[in-house]
């Protein structure tokens, strides 16, 4: 890395808090989201969904709907080409059920009409004959040999023989001699846990506008975390060439992982192709809950041994996740993340994914990690309680650090866990007194963070301003952070730069906005694109001065001779070089395209105080502090925003949020009234402490920060509640009825 030798760099723009470029549009209502655009002649479409958890589709009769005045197109799964690739086929089968409906809410038929009322009326005229099949919605039940089989023949070669066909994959990680480890322990705690499926809960329902013309060209406007991914999935589904489909990402009203795939986009395109008119689809909240990505539900057993002085001697976890009705690899990540915070001699994690009659899982912030780490951190806390040890000291004693062989294999580079734990220990929150009936909980959290395919163009305008074109939808303020990094590298003010997000025809492929990758990967590509532009500007200055390119350096936003021997010329600023660019060789732009690696793992520690009302079972969160290593916080306000937002989603997961299925296999709470996400009055201020342990894989030291904050709250809350009520909780969410039940048993 070119700048690895300047770790103590003094930043001018990075680390400041400038206003976000999309701020005024968003506070005035001008920002355009998925549902906010229309097209001339546009049709509106609605989707008929399965009322059954599991049923064979015997027949579909759409004749009456098609005969209704104003109906222009009807599509079913038959309108999409079967795919060779299993992953793609699953995505498509989730968009439109093929032979069987696999969960309550599974899409069956879509109708486009001249207005919404007609489309809705047409849905009522469609006759679908179902043959109901037995269903299963619980992960443990799905793994039994007599469970209804959700899909046949989907087990990978990794699944041990003799298991239910619902088990689609198996994984195992770890090292060391587990038996010997448990032998060395003074206390061993074994406990089983469950976590409910939760929804990302973005406030903006999925929405798109598709327009396909008779020559096979199409434009698609949609809210997504990745327009290139949408293009690839949709063009395959529709049998189009990628170049003929231009996808534009709207402003996105929250995603958190849930908008990393497609649900309605191929359907809108197919309807538009049939009708020859633009088609808009906007999901209702009910549809969002019933048919878009919840997390996995899980059932987990953890066993940990500890010596009297707090040394962990061995750790084992068995994870059973269900990603709904389709194969899902999320358990792999849970099994790798479970013990990541610990330096262990003996550790083993086993993971299984099982099919259930639930919607297909979609990623949700650090997918797979919150559940696994909740179970591990709960058992560590219980051991601390049994042995009378300070839970923070025990975590420090066993903490993973540089050189630790991680529980998932690789040896850690520079990581910030110890610094984060020390910061928590030193914080006044940790030593503040607690009143009777209150409890304090803590948990560490971890996420891998990813890089990925990234493309950036940086255009130097002749007036001395700069345009950065990148391809990742901005879900947390990344346009501001990207502009800051461009300003830092170029040495010009932040407000001279405008960063925009390109459509799929304007820039090469960019991976989805996920894996906490954007500030890291797009930032790195932007820095390199700026360096590319700087090299060109230095070359232009060298030409103007008549000296060698190598004799020109870039400093504080200007080219200047490298030293007295290079020649005596006053510095030429970016604006001065840009102004004469047409005379010196033409426009100046920098580019960088790469597949970024070296994202740098991220650790956080959360501290929470709670009070439990023993009459109602309600938990009040009294105080909450988040400590996290950001590597380098480019825009500290947005780093804090990630830490606070992730923590609150985790609080919701811990205390209230859950998918509730009835005996009939139907979702009972598909709305914000009954699926209760945290509201402002539920919460205290969320204090934040940003640590900066530079990531060696980024010239400014940046690490991804977006996902880790959702990991620790589950165990932090569970540990706090367990200590407050004197009974160990082992099931999420800890809703009032569950707490009352635990109290009556305790």
């Amino acid at each position: 890395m070119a700048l690895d030798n300047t770790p103590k760099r003094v930043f001018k723009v990075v680390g400041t808090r400038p206003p976000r470029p999309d701020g005024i549009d968003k506070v005035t209502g001008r920002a355009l989201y998925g549902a906010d655009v229309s097209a001339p002649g546009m049709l509106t479409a609605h989707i008929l969904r399965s009322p059954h958890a599991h049923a064979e589709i015997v027949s579909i009769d759409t004749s009456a709907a098609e005969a209704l005045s104003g109906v222009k197109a009807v599509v079913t799964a038959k309108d999409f080409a079967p795919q060779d690739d299993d992953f793609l086929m699953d995505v498509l089968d989730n968009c439109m059920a093929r032979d069987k409906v696999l969960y309550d809410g599974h899409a069956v038929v879509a109708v486009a009409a001249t207005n919404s009322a007609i489309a809705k009326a047409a849905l009522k005229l469609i006759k679908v004959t179902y043959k109901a099949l037995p269903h299963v919605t619980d992960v443990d039940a799905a793994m039994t040999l007599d469970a209804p089989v959700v899909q046949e023949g989907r087990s990978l070669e990794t699944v041990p023989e003799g298991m239910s066909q619902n088990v689609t994959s198996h994984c195992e990680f770890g090292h060391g001699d587990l038996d010997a480890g448990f032998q060395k322990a003074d206390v061993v705690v074994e406990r089983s846990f469950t976590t409910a499926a939760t929804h990302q809960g973005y406030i903006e329902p999925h929405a798109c506008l598709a327009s396909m013309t008779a020559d096979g060209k199409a434009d698609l406007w949609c809210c997504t975390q990745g327009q290139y991914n949408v293009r690839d999935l949709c063009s395959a589904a529709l049998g189009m060439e990628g170049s003929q489909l231009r996808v534009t990402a709207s402003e996105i009203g929250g995603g958190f992982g849930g908008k990393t795939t497609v649900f309605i986009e191929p359907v809108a395109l197919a309807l538009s192709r049939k009708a020859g008119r633009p088609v808009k689809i906007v999901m209702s909240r009910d549809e969002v809950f019933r048919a878009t990505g919840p997390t996995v539900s899980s059932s987990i057993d953890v066993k940990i041994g500890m010596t009297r002085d707090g040394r962990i001697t061995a750790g084992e976890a068995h994870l059973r996740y269900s990603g709904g009705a389709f194969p899902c690899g999320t358990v792999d990540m849970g099994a790798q993340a479970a013990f990541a915070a610990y330096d262990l001699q003996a550790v083993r994690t086993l993971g299984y994914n099982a099919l259930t009659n639930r919607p297909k899982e979609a990623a949700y912030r650090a997918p797979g990690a919150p559940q696994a780490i909740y179970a591990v951190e709960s058992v560590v806390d219980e051991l601390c309680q049994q042995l009378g040890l300070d839970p923070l000291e025990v975590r420090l004693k066993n903490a993973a650090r540089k050189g630790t062989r991680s529980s998932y294999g690789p040896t850690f580079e520079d990581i910030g866990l110890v610094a984060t734990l020390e910061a928590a220990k030193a914080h006044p929150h940790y030593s503040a007194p607690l009143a009777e009936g209150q409890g304090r909980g803590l948990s560490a959290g971890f996420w891998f963070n990813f890089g990925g395919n990234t493309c950036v163009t940086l255009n130097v305008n002749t007036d001395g301003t700069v345009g950065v074109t990148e391809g990742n939808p901005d879900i947390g303020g990344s346009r501001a952070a990207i502009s800051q990094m461009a300003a830092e590298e170029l040495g010009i003010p932040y407000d001279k730069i405008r960063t925009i997000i390109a459509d799929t025809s304007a820039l090469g492929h960019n991976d989805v906005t996920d894996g906490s990758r954007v500030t890291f990967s797009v930032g790195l590509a932007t820095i390199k694109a700026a360096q590319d532009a700087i090299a060109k500007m230095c070359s232009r200055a060298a030409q103007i001065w008549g000296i060698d390119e190598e004799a020109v350096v870039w400093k504080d936003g200007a080219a200047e001779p490298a030293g007295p021997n290079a020649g005596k010329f006053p510095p030429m600023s970016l604006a001065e070089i840009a102004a004469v660019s047409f005379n010196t060789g033409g426009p100046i732009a920098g580019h960088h395209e790469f597949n970024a690696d070296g994202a740098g793992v991220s650790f956080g520690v959360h501290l929470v105080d709670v009070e439990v009302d023993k009459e109602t079972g309600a938990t009040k969160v009294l105080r909450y502090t988040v400590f996290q290593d950001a590597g380098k916080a480019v825009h500290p306000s947005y780093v804090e925003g990630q830490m606070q937002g992730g923590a609150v989603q985790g609080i919701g997961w811990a205390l209230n949020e859950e998918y509730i299925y009835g005996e009939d296999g139907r979702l009972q709470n598909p709305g914000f009234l009954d699926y209760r996400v945290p509201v402002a009055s539920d919460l205290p201020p969320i204090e934040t402490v940003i640590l900066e342990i530079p990531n060696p894989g980024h010239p400014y030291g940046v690490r991804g920060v977006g996902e880790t904050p959702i990991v620790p709250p589950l165990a932090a809350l569970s540990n706090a509640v367990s200590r407050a009520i004197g009974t160990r909780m082992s099931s999420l969410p800890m809703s009032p009825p569950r707490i009352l039940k635990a109290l009556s048993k305790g």
Partner: protein
Amino acid sequence: MKSIHVSTTVNGDAVEFICAPDESLLDVLRNRLGLTGAKEGCGTGDCGACSVTLNGRLVCSCLVLGAEAEGADVGTIEGLANGDALHQLQQSFIDHAALQCGICTPGILVAAKALLEKNPDPTDTEVRYWLAGNLCRCTGYDKIIHAVQDAAQKMRSA
């Protein structure tokens, strides 16, 4: 069903529209008047993203019929700024990084303005309870409370 003709005032401007009898005020604003600042997050009055004022009262426009706007005074996010001069709440939200994705921001700003008109000096708890009907999934609310209090303080001393 025959459409209904409605004469109303939106953000101080006289407006006429026709709508179906069962059409929500939110759909009228978004689909007939081109005012897409109010958002539909749920359609059931649970999320507050569609908040507007009707004769000065804070409402979820998804739960109000378009026809109910007859003769009324409707206030939406598009009317918050005075020309190119932002309302103090808007400026404070930008200054305090009180938005991420921004989908809930119009509703929260409309609700916060209604609060400060009733109570120019609220406690944090009062702000939290007033905004309890406006869901935000990105921020954890912390910076929103700071921004509202910053605006309240500046508006009091203006």
